[in-house]
């Protein structure tokens, strides 16, 4: 009940940007796919099918969904850190390929050689999947540099965390991006924690939208739990970057429900805090409530979608469980290209 109240209250705010019913449905599907996929990945990790580090995106679904909906899918480049499964799903990469990479199988997006933190797709213009905190910011700047160099009208979307926002190379990148008017949108996914460190404990100032101020980069703080807000702000930022004005910063206020990675007991925050987000701010529940309330969908029609998505995830999991490991000869491939 509490969820519904919040959602309908939001609707009465006239200045909240609205999505069309089609867009709402698209957002719902995408976010639900991420949620169910990540839940499955968590289970498979528990079963020992996935190894190493596995960082789930549960709770943050609205960010990548809203931004990608506002971008030119397949043309604009995207890059992020290791919390990357959701980005790939929304960008249209095959869930089977993503899941099989998590299990380290030959049908995985990197042929099993990359793992959870390292997946890429030239075709979809997704550049990873990066394990070193902050590295993707400079790399994203480079994607924007290439876009400007070629004059191809594309924009680079570089996602990074509140923790990453304190790395030095972020500010080197901000300076160059503004200096050279690079078409890049810096998306800070502020989920309040970097592993066990809250933003208050790591950052002299915690309003990350202002981090570009000394470079004169415009920034906005966005409710990253509300896909409408994300979509609206992303449209503005992407349009700004595409029109040649240079970089733009979006700070997405979001929340991860799970631990930092599968091995994090998450003792640094209260259960209440997590529960509050889940019950009152959940990005998927918000859309669902609006879809139902507007009459665009019914409980029954949403159940059909839910079962379609479950089927996709189940198939992905089955594929990833049964697919073969890479051929041993693959150990020696892809190190350098022999010209």
């Amino acid at each position, binding site marked *: 009940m509490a969820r519904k109240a919040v959602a309908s209250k939001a609707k009465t705010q006239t200045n909240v940007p609205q999505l069309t019913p089609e867009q709402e449905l698209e957002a719902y599907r995408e976010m639900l796919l991420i949620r169910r996929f990540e839940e499955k990945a968590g289970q498979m990790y528990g079963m020992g099918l996935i190894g190493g580090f596995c960082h789930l995106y549960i709770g943050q679904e609205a960010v990548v969904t809203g931004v990608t909906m506002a971008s030119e899918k397949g043309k604009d480049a995207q890059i992020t850190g290791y919390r990357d499964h959701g980005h790939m799903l929304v960008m249209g990469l095959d869930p089977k390929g993503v899941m099989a990479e998590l299990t380290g199988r030959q049908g995985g997006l990197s042929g099993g*050689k990359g793992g959870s933190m390292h997946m890429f797709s030239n075709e979809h213009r997704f550049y990873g999947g990066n394990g070193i905190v902050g590295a993707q910011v400079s790399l994203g700047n480079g994607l924007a540099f290439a876009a400007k160099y070629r004059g191809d009208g594309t924009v680079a979307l570089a996602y990074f965390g509140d923790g990453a926002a304190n*790395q030095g190379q972020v500010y080197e990148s901000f300076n160059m991006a503004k200096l050279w008017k690079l078409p890049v949108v810096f998306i800070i996914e502020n989920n309040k924690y970097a592993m*066990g460190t809250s933003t208050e404990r790591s950052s002299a100032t915690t309003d990350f939208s202002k981090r570009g101020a000394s470079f004169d980069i415009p920034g906005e703080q966005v409710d990253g739990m509300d896909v409408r807000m994300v979509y609206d702000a992303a449209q503005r930022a992407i349009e700004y970057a595409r029109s040649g004005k240079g970089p733009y910063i979006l700070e997405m206020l979001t929340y991860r429900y799970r631990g930092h990675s599968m091995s994090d007991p998450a003792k640094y925050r209260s259960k209440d805090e997590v529960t509050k987000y889940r019950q009152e701010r959940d990005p998927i529940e918000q859309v669902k409530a609006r879809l139902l309330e507007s009459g665009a969908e019914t409980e029954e029609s949403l159940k059909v979608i839910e079962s379609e998505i479950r089927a996709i995830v189940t198939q992905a999991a089955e594929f990833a469980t049964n697919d073969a*490991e890479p051929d*041993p000869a693959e150990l020696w491939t892809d190190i350098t290209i022999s010209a």
Partner: protein
Amino acid sequence: MPQILMPALSPTMEEGTLSKWLVKVGDTVSPGDVLAEIETDKATMEVEAVDSGVVKELMIEEGTEGVKVNTPIALVLGEGEQAGEAAPKVAEQAATSEPAAETAAATVPAEAKAPQAADAPKFVAQDDPDLPEGVEMVEMTVRQALNEAMAEELRRDKDVFVIGEEVAEYQGAYKITQNLLQEFGPERIVDTPITEHGFAGLAVGAAFAGLKPIVEFMTWNFAMQAIDQIINSAAKQLYMSGGQVTAPMVFRGPNGVASRVGAQHSQDYSAWYSHVPGLTVIAPYSAADAKGLLKAAIRSPNPVIFLENEILYGSTGLVPKMDDFLLPIGKARIARKGADVTIVSFSMGMRYASQATEKLVAAGVDVELIDLRTLRPLDSDTVIESVKKTGRMVTVEEGWPQGGIGAELSARVMEAAFDYLDAPVMRVTGKDVPMPYAANLEKLALPHVDDVIAAVNAVTYRS
């Protein structure tokens, strides 16, 4: 200043074109007056007068190319000066960086020999101290041993502090700093933002100012963000300052191959840091070595790279219960005495080497097993003595083969014990590939006990 010499306008200039004279014979010049213009392939520069005087002679014609540096180009006589009286001086030129060096080089007699460096002084390691009779041996994990070492040194010396990501409130990403915050407080156990380059540099600066930082890198993979401060600032400081400024500090954290974390989170930096003069590099295997060497590292006046291993954190060993258990830096440990073949390893490599040794001994091969413990300074003596006895060596490490610790050891053995070798040295290493994620490929990328056995069989010519 009778003779004006052709100046060098850059450290590398050997000759140039005298493109233009701006004075003629009979002119009176004062300091700073431009005498001539000189051109090199890189720039045009002006030659200025240093003293006042009268131009007596222009010895090189305008437009002459290929005028060698230090050739006399003009004669300018000061009041009461006569030609040939004073020593020639090089004209001061408008804008060159190191004329002094160039001049000095030019005055070295032509027949001077290339300078001969003195031999590098030989490092002589101390032996492990004898343990007090009847000392109690306590079983503990490597994790506990490291934790105790830090706690003891923090208690002993107020200048010691710990800094890094998640070291305090979270109690360490791998729980090596557990309870240190509780005992020593947030001034001495310092959580940082994710800013490796920044906090490593900060710690080096604090060490310059006399503190003794222990910098924890969550893993050594992330220290690559900070490697400039480690090498360019910490390692070289003592030398660059002529012995004045030191960086007494420890950089520590898990190194090497972890489990299923892929290429960016799984690699061995042993050889990387062992390459650098000015650093001390330690990579212990046992719990006792972890404790005794970390305590020694914290007390060392030098910057120490302390390479731990995530997979070994939970392994246990016996550690002497003493108020102050210290081990000598730079001393290898002979883990097993033997006569047939020398196996040399360190850190996680010791696990493969020990298991292989067990099997080999059971099969009748009398293995001598050496745990290097310290990688710089490297205890060549212990290794070479052993090889002189056994005539055969196999090295074991997780890192890449090219330029690895095994490569260094085999070079040293070849230089010092070539005539004693009965077989080529063989290296067992990680495969020459980035670490793959897939379980089967990861296994293939790692060194194995069987690889060590095969190498020993090869050097002992057993089948």
